[in-house]
């Protein structure tokens, strides 16, 4: 059984400028199927807050709709279908509002956990970390460097086509974690290599396993992390394998509902 919690909070620079939180996150855990995801709405786009909220809601629904077993044959293709479904939903919303889908630009990172695999789908620069065989490793980090074009978005067809999809065996996996890039200075040990900072993930995993861990406490931690060096919105969601954990209901947190 996976135990999951997380939160999104507005960044200090966003608060100072009177801007809302453009990040969103969500998760659910049922027996045999769990999902966690984060989305980072592009601050430069007018409706990115709605974009990130819609992406989270839609991807959660798509992951649940498939149900147990739907993804066994080809998890990567199934993940691609989830991302394509989110893209289609954004295009539909944009068309209905007479808008360009790019107005809703958002990144999206999704992890689906079954008894057999962990399937990770990423568009954009979220940070995905796996606790695998006793070590932490970043899963398919976003490419960096001078010749990399702009951040990819799920609201862009090219972003969906270029999604980074990784399938890991679930057996040796103890925990998986997602964060938006606003946390990079604090949770990475090496920014260039996008390598995790192990003490943070040790503490996060231990906290999530504690009996009274809560999303509220994670939100409080994020909100109190004012010297985060990025000033950006911050989102963190973690899932740990936790035998005997009570089964939480589906949860979402973060950004506001789509208007």
């Amino acid at each position, binding site marked *: 059984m996976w135990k999951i919690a997380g939160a999104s909070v507005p*960044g200090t*620079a966003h608060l*100072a*400028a009177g801007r809302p939180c453009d990040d969103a996150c969500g998760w659910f855990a049922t027996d045999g199927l769990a999902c966690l995801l984060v989305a980072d709405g*592009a*601050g*430069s786009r007018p409706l990115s807050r709605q974009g990130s909220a819609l992406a989270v809601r839609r991807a959660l629904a798509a992951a649940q709709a498939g149900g147990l077993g739907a993804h066994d044959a080809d998890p990567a293709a199934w993940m691609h279908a989830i991302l394509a479904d989110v893209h289609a939903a954004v295009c539909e919303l944009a068309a209905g509002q007479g808008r360009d889908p790019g107005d809703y630009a958002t990144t999206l990172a999704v992890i689906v956990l079954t008894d057999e695999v962990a399937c990770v789908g990423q568009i954009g620069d979220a940070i995905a970390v796996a606790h695998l065989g006793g070590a932490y490793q970043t899963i398919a980090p976003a490419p*960096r*460097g*001078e*010749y*990399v*074009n*702009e*951040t990819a978005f799920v609201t862009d067809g090219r972003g969906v086509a270029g999604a980074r999809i990784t399938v890991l065996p679930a057996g040796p996996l103890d925990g998986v974690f997602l964060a938006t890039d606003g946390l*990079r*200075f*604090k*949770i*990475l*040990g*090496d*920014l*260039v290599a996008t390598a995790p*900072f192990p*003490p*943070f993930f*040790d*503490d*996060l995993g231990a*906290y999530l396993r*504690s009996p*009274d*861990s*809560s999303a*509220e*406490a*994670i939100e*409080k*931690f994020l909100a109190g*992390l004012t010297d985060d*060096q*990025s*000033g*950006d919105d911050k989102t963190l969601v973690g899932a740990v394998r936790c035998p005997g954990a009570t089964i939480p209901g589906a949860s979402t947190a973060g950004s506001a509902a789509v208007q």
Partner: protein
Amino acid sequence: MTEFAPRVNESNPDPRIACAVLLDTSGSMFGNPIEELNKGFELFCQEIKDDELAAKRAEVAVITFGGEARLAVPFTEGRDLKPQPLTAGGTTPLGQALNLALDELERQKGAYRAAGLEYYRPWLFVLTDGRPTDPEIFAVAADRLRKAEDKRHVSVFGIGIGEGADLSHLEELSAQRKPLRLAGLSFREFFSWLSASLGSASASTAFGGSDSAVATAEAAEQIPLPPAGWATA
């Protein structure tokens, strides 16, 4: 509610904003103007230390042009800046100074990338009361600067010193921004504004690990600069 207080990495380096300040130290600045300029820079060295973010994120270089273009202060973190008395004399080789500044900014950005540091778009300020005495070099350097700014590699601010300054050549430095005129010898007001502006920039999220990432970040957040009270209308 059990408190969640994980250990976080406190040792990742902050993003940097490189700021090249080009100061006219030619003969026409002799006397009161250079004295006021020195007082202004001295104040700047103090005020930038008082801004917690600018003190560690801003890196300032001073290039003087009086007789020759000279790197008077190599790129130095705000918290380590020290006043350095400047003297006036000689011609106004502004073209050479622009080339030197662009070379230094490119070198500095390369150093950031090599060290894995993220950065803001660099700033380049030119303060002069005269005309360039190296017009051929100036024409090429000004073209180079305009192109660099058009590619968002640098933000250029031209400032004419005093009522008599001819702004026409400063207008050649940027297609994005018109030059301003310093009211009298209000260097202290200018440097105080520059310190506050570097503070505003340092508190923004308009940085990234490459020029393209910086451009994307800038699209999301305009850096608000305080009113330029030192400029004449």
